[in-house]
C-alpha cells in the first residue's frame, strides 16, 4: 500500500492481514494499531466478555434443544460465532442501531432482548419479537443482504440530522454476493454514512463454502467501494471489540463507513433443519474447535491470573439463569389469536382488508355456533 492509500483508509493494517490480539492458545499479541482501542479493557471487562459468551453459547444450546423437543419450529445456531457477536455488540453505544440477519442472537442478547422475545419468532408464534426502537435493533431479516441497505439509510438519516449515532449492518459471507450488499456499500460511500458493515464470514452459506462467493478475503471488497476493509480473527473477542470500536468511532466522527470481515466458523448446522455432514468433514470442524472463542479467552484470563474458579462459577450461574429464563420464556409465549392474522397489515384503515376480516370472522364464527349447537 502506498502512503496515500493508507491515508484514504486510515489504516496501517491491510485488508488481507488478520487482526488478532489473542491467538488460539490465548496468548496476547501486541498490535500497535488496535491495542489502543482496548486499552481500557481490564480483567473485569474481559470476565464480562467471557461470561456473555458462555451465556449465549448456553442460550443457543438450549434453543437447539427446544427445537429438538418441538417447542421451536426452527433455530439457526450461532455456536462458534460468540466472539464475533459479543465483541462487536459490546462496541456499540446505546443509541447506535443494529440491522441484522437471523443468526445474531448474541447481538440481540446484548441489546437487551429477552429470551421470550428472541424465541417467539422461531416458535412460529409471532412475526417478530421485540420493539426495534426500545432495543435499538431492527427486526432480523431473512432475505439475505436486504438489511444492509436499511442500515445505510438509517445512517444517512443520522448524518443529515447531525446525530452522533452510527448503525451497524450484520450479514454473512454468502450475503456479500447479493446485489443489495454491494449497493449498500455504494450508497454508504457516496453519502459518507456512519455505518459499519460487519460481515461474519463463518465459512459457509448453508452448504456452500465461502470460496464460492469469493476467492480472496472479503475485506478486500471494501477498498473498491471507497472505504477501509479490515479482516479480524472473529474468534478473538478482544480483536473484534477493538476493530469494531475503531470503525464505529470513525463513523461517528464523520469519516464514513468501514467494512469488517470477522473470520469465524459456524460450528453447528446452518439451522436445525440442516445436516452439515453432507457437505463438510469432521476434520474441518475439529480444526475450528481448536480455535474456540471461549477457550482462548479462558486461557488468557487464566494466564492473566484471574480467579478462574470464580470466573467459571459466575459464568455458569449467569448461563443457568439465562437458560432458566429461556425455558420459562418459551412457555410464556402466548399462542396468537386466529383473527390476529389480520393485524398490522396496514397502519391505517383499509376497506378491502376490513371486509375480508369481517368475512373471515363470520366464517370462524360458524364453527363456534356449530360447536355450541353440538353441546
Amino acid at each position, binding site marked *: 500500500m502506498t502512503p496515500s492509500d493508507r491515508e484514504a483508509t486510515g489504516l496501517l493494517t491491510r485488508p488481507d492481514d488478520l487482526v488478532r490480539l489473542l491467538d488460539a492458545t490465548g496468548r496476547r499479541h501486541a498490535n500497535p494499531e488496535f491495542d489502543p482501542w482496548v486499552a481500557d479493557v481490564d480483567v473485569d471487562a474481559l470476565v464480562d466478555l467471557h461470561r456473555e459468551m458462555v451465556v449465549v453459547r448456553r442460550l443457543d444450546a438450549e434453543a437447539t434443544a427446544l427445537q429438538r423437543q418441538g417447542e421451536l419450529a426452527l433455530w439457526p445456531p450461532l455456536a462458534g460465532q460468540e466472539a464475533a457477536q459479543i465483541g462487536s455488540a459490546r462496541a456499540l453505544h446505546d443509541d447506535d442501531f443494529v440491522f441484522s440477519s437471523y443468526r445474531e442472537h448474541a447481538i440481540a442478547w446484548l441489546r437487551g432482548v429477552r429470551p421470550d422475545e428472541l424465541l417467539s419468532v422461531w416458535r412460529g408464534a409471532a412475526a417478530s419479537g421485540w420493539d426495534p426502537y426500545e432495543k435499538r435493533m431492527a427486526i432480523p431479516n431473512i432475505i439475505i443482504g*436486504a438489511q444492509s441497505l*436499511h442500515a445505510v*439509510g438509517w445512517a*444517512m438519516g443520522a448524518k443529515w440530522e447531525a446525530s452522533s449515532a452510527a448503525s451497524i449492518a450484520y450479514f454473512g459471507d454468502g450475503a456479500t454476493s447479493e446485489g443489495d450488499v454491494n449497493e449498500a456499500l455504494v450508497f454508504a460511500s457516496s453519502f459518507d454514512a456512519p455505518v459499519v458493515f460487519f460481515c461474519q464470514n463463518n465459512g459457509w452459506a448453508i452448504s456452500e463454502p465461502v470460496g464460492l462467493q469469493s476467492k480472496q478475503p472479503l475485506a478486500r471488497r471494501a477498498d473498491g467501494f471507497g472505504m477501509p476493509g479490515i479482516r479480524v480473527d472473529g474468534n478473538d473477542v478482544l480483536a473484534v471489540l477493538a476493530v469494531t470500536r475503531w470503525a464505529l468511532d470513525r463513523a461517528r466522527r464523520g469519516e464514513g463507513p468501514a467494512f469488517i470481515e470477522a473470520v469465524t466458523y459456524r460450528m453447528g448446522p446452518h439451522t436445525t433443519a440442516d445436516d452439515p455432514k453432507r457437505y463438510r468433514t469432521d476434520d474441518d470442524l475439529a480444526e475450528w474447535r481448536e480455535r474456540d472463542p471461549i477457550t482462548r479467552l479462558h486461557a488468557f484470563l487464566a494466564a492473566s491470573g484471574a480467579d478462574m474458579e470464580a470466573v467459571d462459577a459466575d459464568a455458569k450461574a449467569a448461563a443457568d439463569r439465562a437458560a432458566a429464563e429461556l425455558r420459562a420464556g418459551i412457555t410464556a409465549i402466548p399462542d396468537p389469536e386466529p383473527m390476529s392474522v389480520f393485524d398490522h*397489515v396496514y397502519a391505517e384503515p383499509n*376497506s378491502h382488508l376490513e371486509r375480508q376480516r369481517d368475512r373471515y370472522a363470520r366464517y370462524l364464527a360458524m364453527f363456534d355456533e356449530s360447536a355450541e349447537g353440538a353441546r
Partner: protein
Amino acid sequence: MTTITFGKAINEGLRRALADDDTVVLMGEDIGTLGGVFRITDGLKAEFGEHRVVDTPLSEAGIVGTAVGLAYRGFRPVVEIQFDGFVYPAFDQIVAQVAKLHYRSRGTVRMPMVIRIPFGGGIGAAEHHSESPEAYFTHTAGLRVIACSNPADAYVMIRQAIASDDPVVFLEPKRRYHVKGEVDLEANLADARPMGVATTVAAGDDVTLVTYGALVQTAKDAATAAAEDDVSIEVIDLRSLAPVDYATIEASVRRTGRLVVAHEAGEQGGVGAEIAASITERCFDFLEAAPVRVTGHDIPYPPAKLEQYHLPDLDRILDGVDRALGRPNSLSEVDA
C-alpha cells in the same frame, strides 16, 4: 385556483409536503440538480437543499432499501423511480420489506414511504419506458396503490400519499404530465376527498366505465362520443387501485347493469380482472352482461410505432361498451 400542468401540480404538491414536514425527503436518480427527467422535482433541491432532495447512485434497490432505513428512523421518504420499467430491480425491497415491515414488526415500524412511478405508454418511448406494472403492486398485501388522472387530484393526492402512514405506490400517467388544469394550491388536506375514494367523472345510465390514469380522459371522450349515439356512459376514475372503492362502482353497476374496465396493462391478471371478478361477486343479480375488459394486449410493450395498436383508445373503449351493451361490436359474430 391556478392553471398549471399535471407535472407542475405534482411539483407543487411535493414542495408543499417538503415545506410542511421536515421528515419528508425526496430521493431518486437525477431528481436534484436536473429536477428529474420529467422536471417533476424541478427547483426543489435548490429550495430545500441536498439533504431533502437527494440525487442517489444509480440503483433502484438501493434507493428503496435506503429509504426503508430512513423510514425506520422516522423519515417519510418519497422515492422516484425514473420510469415504470425500472422498478423491478427494487421489487424485492418493495415486496419483502416496504410492504411487509409494518406487519412483520407487529406494527412497531411504520413505512410511510411513497414510491412515485411515471407509468404507462403513449409517448413514443424506447423499451421499458411505457410499462403499466400496477397489478404487481395491487396483488401485494401491505401496499396502497394510487393512480391520479388530473392536475387537481395530483396536487392533493401526492400530499395525501405522503401523509399516509402506509406505503403508497403512486402512479403518474406520464403522457398527461403536460396537460393543464385548474388546481387549488391552497387546498386543505383535511377537506380533500380521501385518496381511497373513486370519483364519478361523468354520469350515465347505460353502462359503467371504470378506468384510471391516462385513460380517464379517453373514457370521458368516449362518453361524449357515445352520447351522440344515445348511449349514456358513467365514467368512474378509480384513483385508488388498492384498495378499490367498490362502494362507488357497485352503486353505479347496480343502476347500469353493465361494466367495462379499461387499462393499458395486459389483460391477464390485470386490475380489470380483479374488478370484474369482484363486481360480479357483488352485483351478480344486477348484471345484464359479463363485465368487459378493454386492455393492452398480453405482450411486452411494443415499439413506438406499434403502440397505437396496443393501447386502448377511444374506439376500442367504445367497442368494449358495445360489447357490454350487446350492440354490434368486433366480437358480435364470435360470441353469437
